[in-house]
């Protein structure tokens, strides 16, 4: 008996018991759909996270005060204030010692209470310099960013994020440009504040790392340092490098400058940390990859459970069809033919289940991506060919593995006993 007629026979058998065949493959359908959905969601989430990181630019370096393990969190997270990074460091780095740096930008951050007329809102402030727009890709919605002269001259100017501009001026019809707002440290409960003239509003940046990038104001560094925070040190120096290729060179240059300025002799004395986006991307990729692997393993386990379902039903089928098997042997089926028939039946069942699962999984993954896009995330709908191959491969394999025992059992039946079986 050849292969194609066995297939025809098996299909005829499966069609004769449609309801049961459907129930049999349900576990596989769900398992395969699970694998597809999980892999698609994993890829979507990964692209979302990595997209947000790389939005910052892979050619961005950040120097933070304090020594920290490459993979550990920065010291500031524990509330420790480290004052080793200074305006002098930023100036020295800007002073031609970094040939491949496009811009060096010094930052302090904090929370501020902002008042205009009778409107008061709480927001974040960034005390920064005129190099900020070059380092963080920033576009203006209205007005201008402060220039070097305004920055160094401690001009009383401020640039508003679009959310803040909306909060203060929304609905009033007043053009924010040229208006004077009062800004004070949010920890300071006394009324009043430093009067700052609005000279620009940034274009919306959207949400990054689940934080509204537009809910902030940008003001000259010294105002932030001295008048709002009362500090003399920096919290970060961000450096835009001319290209990915110069990152390692520039890191070395930074080390030379800072080691000399901070009189660092051994590795243990280092009191700053240089981070770059590429490392962060690597780190995040490692984490998301591990997560995907874990989830895929979970889904694969559900496939094995589905396979056990197949095993059960196939065993029941062999029991139920004992007489049929006996008859087939009596009219000339060899053990091998019977074995092949049942193996193909199991393989075909799981194969069909796999196809149904793929369709179901793709639909579910697509709906999820629509939902995420509707919620405003930059979510990609990714169905990888390899995930489909994996799902179908595993499902057919489970079918064959779990179909083996019933098939051998069927083939071993003694035709005499089988014919007498009631």
């Amino acid at each position, binding site marked *: 008996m050849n292969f194609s007629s066995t297939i025809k026979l098996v299909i005829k058998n499966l069609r004769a018991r449609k309801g049961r065949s459907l129930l049999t493959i349900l576990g596989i359908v769900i398992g395969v759909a699970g694998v597809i959905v999980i892999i698609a969601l994993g890829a979507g989430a990964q692209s979302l996270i990595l997209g947000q990181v790389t939005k910052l630019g892979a050619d961005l370096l950040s120097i933070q005060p304090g020594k920290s393990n490459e993979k550990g969190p920065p010291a500031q997270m524990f509330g420790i204030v480290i004052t080793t990074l200074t305006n002098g460091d930023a100036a020295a780095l800007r002073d031609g010692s970094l040939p491949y740096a496009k811009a060096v930008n010094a930052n302090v951050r904090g929370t501020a209470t902002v008042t205009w007329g009778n409107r008061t809102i709480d927001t974040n402030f960034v005390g920064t310099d005129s190099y900020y727009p070059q380092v963080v890709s920033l576009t203006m919605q209205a007005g201008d960013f402060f220039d070097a002269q305004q920055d160094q001259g401690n001009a009383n100017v401020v640039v508003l994020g679009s959310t803040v501009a909306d909060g203060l001026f929304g609905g009033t019809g007043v053009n924010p440009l040229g208006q004077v707002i009062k800004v004070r440290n949010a920890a300071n409960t006394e009324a009043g504040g430093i009067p700052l003239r609005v000279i620009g509003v940034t274009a919306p940046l959207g949400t990054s790392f689940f934080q509204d990038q537009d809910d902030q104001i940008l003001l000259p560094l010294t105002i932030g340092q001295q008048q709002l925070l009362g500090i003399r040190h920096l919290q970060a120096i961000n450096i835009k490098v001319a290209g990915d290729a110069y990152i390692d060179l520039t890191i070395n240059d930074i080390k030379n400058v800072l080691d000399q300025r901070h009189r660092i002799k051994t590795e243990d004395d280092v009191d700053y940390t240089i981070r770059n986006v590429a490392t962060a991307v690597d780190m995040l990729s490692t984490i998301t990859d591990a997560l995907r692997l874990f989830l895929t393993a979970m889904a694969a386990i559900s496939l094995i459970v589905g396979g056990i379902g197949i095993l059960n039903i196939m065993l029941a089928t062999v029991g139920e069809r004992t007489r049929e098997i006996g008859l087939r042997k009596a009219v000339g089926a*060899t*053990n091998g033919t019977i074995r092949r028939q049942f193996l193909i039946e199991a393989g075909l069942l799981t194969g069909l289940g796999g196809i149904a699962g793929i369709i179901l999984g793709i639909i579910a993954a697509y709906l999820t991506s629509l939902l995420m896009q509707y919620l405003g995330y930059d979510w990609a709908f990714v169905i990888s060919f390899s995930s489909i191959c994996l799902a179908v491969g595993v499902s057919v394999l489970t079918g064959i593995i779990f179909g083996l025992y019933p098939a051998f059992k069927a083939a071993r039946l003694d035709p005499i006993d089988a014919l007498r079986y009631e």
Partner: protein
Amino acid sequence: MELINVINLSKNYGSDGVVTPVLHDLSFKIKQGEFVAIMGPSGSGKSTLMHILSFLDRPTNGSYKFDGRDTEDFDDDYLAQLRNERIGFVFQSFNLLPRTTVLDNVKLPLIYSKKKNHDQLAKQALAAVGLSHRLSYYTNQISGGEKQRVAIARALVCDPAVIFADEPTGNLDSKSGNTVMHILQRLNEEGRTIILVTHESDTANHAQRIIRIKDGRLVEDEKVKHRTIAQTDKELTK
């Protein structure tokens, strides 16, 4: 020429420890074209003998020559091929496939054979048992007598040398039983060897010769003196 030649054949059941002998030292020959009844009460070993003769089982001792060749050396796959090509079975309980049409039931042995034109062969076999009008019926839609005729068509479809009929009338009323015996006698007249296994002498008398078995031993082997000829059935001429 003998089709079947059994010499000192024995069969024991149970291998380790307890051995139950079922057949003792049987010897007989069956010629091509004979209609032989193997008769005996239940438990006599007649079914076991039929299983051995039809290659569903093997003897413990003695030899069984089929068509002049010793069957001892045949492997399982070759025995399956012999069952397919040289032997047809008719069972007491029909053993038709459920949820399957009459035509597909008859085609069943063909899918295990090298023969072509399955539809044509199956239709010819069904015409021979007068069931051309039932081709697309499902097996649960036809009567017991018709079921057994489908089974005979299935036994015929591969053009076998021998048809083994194991109590073919056991589950049938006398009229349907008569039809079945009529068909078997007609097939025999057309030159086919028929081996009928039964415990009823009325049925056995349709054969030309009766081999009587009791307690696993051959007690009598003789020609039927007053052979019953089954009456022509109107149904078959439809």
